[in-house]
């Protein structure tokens, strides 16, 4: 039976909220969405199978390709998995620099998300402002590691390079500059009634339903659950740092935006604290035992800007792993899209999808 006024639309890449390649079939009656079905798999490249032929010196580069907006997260996850399995000791200075890199990647990733989100809502000025600040943050990752997107910097046992004192002064100058930029974003977006009218009470998800599907990261914190891997299962010296975890209330698009803006401020505070008190010492200790010595089966997780990134490795007395499995946070966000889009207007679909910060190279691996 054919219903009247029901149209099936295939939304794909040209919309500003749906970047990369991702297809969403929605069933529309009038202006209201009735049903939706996402289709993924356009970036499936076989990362897990490729890892089964890589020796340990090649693994950090492959692990940095998991999350394309913050490449250091995958490397840190792989390193701490091997370090806890082989009981390797990491010097304090290496842990401090790892924290520095992870926090500046978080700032860069959130600013990149902000530029896409404001383009989806319609505020083109913020796209330009956020991209300019994101480029300045990526410049610091490049000064430290040599590359913007795939650093290839963190290895089991420490890190590959050191940080000089003149770079620390430039870093602190950048953080002071960023502190002056955040009130500008507030003026343009948070306190702007036209922006609030477009994102308030749109795309709500319930906290209990999100927990049953396994959601993590800023999307879950916007629903009211205080869950952060840096506090639950600390790694790399996060247990000694003092920082707050921002939480929202309603679970709509505005709360997801607000949680990420507050996280940028918290990351900036963490960076100021740790750069002023950098411990001395080496940055790398050569491991005395390696993957040939015993059977390894270990699961490690870190807090990447999208949520909880988990890596499972299994070595069986050979140089190449038997299994390399990646648990990515964006796959769950794709399954939650259906609950967020139903009974909303078609013109809001781009805004809602963009507010979840879905990284498609993570979903498809």
């Amino acid at each position: 039976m054919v219903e009247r006024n029901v149209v099936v639309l295939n939304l794909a890449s040209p919309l500003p909220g749906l970047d990369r390649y991702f297809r969403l079939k929605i069933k529309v009656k009038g202006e209201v969405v009735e049903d939706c079905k996402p289709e993924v798999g356009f970036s499936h490249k076989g990362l897990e199978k490729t890892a089964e032929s890589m020796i340990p010196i090649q693994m950090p580069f492959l692990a940095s390709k998991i999350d394309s907006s913050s490449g250091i997260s995958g490397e840190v996850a792989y390193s701490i998995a091997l370090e806890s399995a082989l009981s390797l000791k990491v010097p304090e200075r290496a842990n401090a620099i790892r924290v520095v890199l992870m926090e500046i990647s978080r700032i860069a990733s959130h600013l990149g998300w902000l530029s896409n989100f404001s383009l989806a809502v319609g505020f083109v000025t913020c796209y330009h402002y956020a991209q300019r600040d994101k480029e300045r943050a990526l410049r610091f990752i490049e000064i430290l590691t040599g590359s913007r997107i795939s650093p290839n910097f963190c290895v089991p046992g420490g890190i590959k390079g050191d940080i000089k004192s003149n770079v620390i002064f430039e870093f602190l100058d950048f953080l002071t500059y960023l502190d002056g930029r955040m009130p500008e974003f507030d003026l343009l977006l948070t306190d702007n009634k036209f922006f609030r009218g477009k994102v308030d009470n749109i795309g709500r998800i319930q906290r209990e339903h999100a927990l049953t599907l396994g959601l993590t990261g800023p999307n879950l914190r916007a629903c009211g659950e205080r869950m952060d891997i840096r506090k639950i299962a600390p790694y790399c010296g996060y247990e000694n740092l003092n920082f707050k975890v921002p939480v929202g209330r309603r679970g709509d698009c505005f709360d997801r935006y607000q949680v990420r803006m507050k996280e940028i401020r918290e990351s900036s505070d963490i960076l100021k604290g740790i750069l002023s008190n950098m411990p001395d010492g080496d940055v790398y200790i050569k491991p005395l035992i390696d993957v040939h010595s015993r059977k390894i089966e270990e699961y490690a997780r870190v807090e990447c800007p999208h949520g909880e990134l988990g890596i499972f490795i299994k070595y069986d007395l050979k140089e190449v792993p038997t299994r390399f499995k990646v648990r990515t946070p964006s796959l769950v966000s794709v399954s939650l899209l259906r609950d967020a889009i139903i009974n909303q207007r078609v013109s809001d679909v781009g805004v809602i999808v963009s507010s979840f910060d879905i990284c498609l190279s993570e979903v498809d691996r």
Partner: protein
Amino acid sequence: MIENIEQLYLKGILAKVLLEEKISKVPSGRKVEVKVLEKRIDIKLDGRDLIDVLMKLRESEKLSFDFLDCIICYQEKGNFSLIYQIYSTETWQTLSIKAVLPPGTSSIESVTGIYPAAFLMEQEIFELYGINFEGVNYNANLFLPQGDRNFPMRRDTDG
């Protein structure tokens, strides 16, 4: 506020101590190994006992494990094993259940009745490894082209 944290801590410790007694007895009589480590609890069991143990864990008052994080599948010398990573939302305690499938088989009961999050994870494992989950029919492919049934992650050679 402080009382609540103490109560949760005591609940967690007590529940860990009592856990081993509760889970070790399964109706079929097969062996269930429980190891309580500093950061997580490891359980190893046969694939056919999985649902019994999970129901007991889910219904515990003091420490209910209700957040399924991920399902990991690997193949060792032709035998499949599945690892379920589960958290408890009260204390965020980690639990790691390894279900070893009997040698030569590739089918296990689905846990989507207990954890709705398992639907996508089992679909991916079926598509890449070919493990049959009884009770649910996974037709459409997520990552591979439609109709592709090559199971690319399987290892044909030894180890």
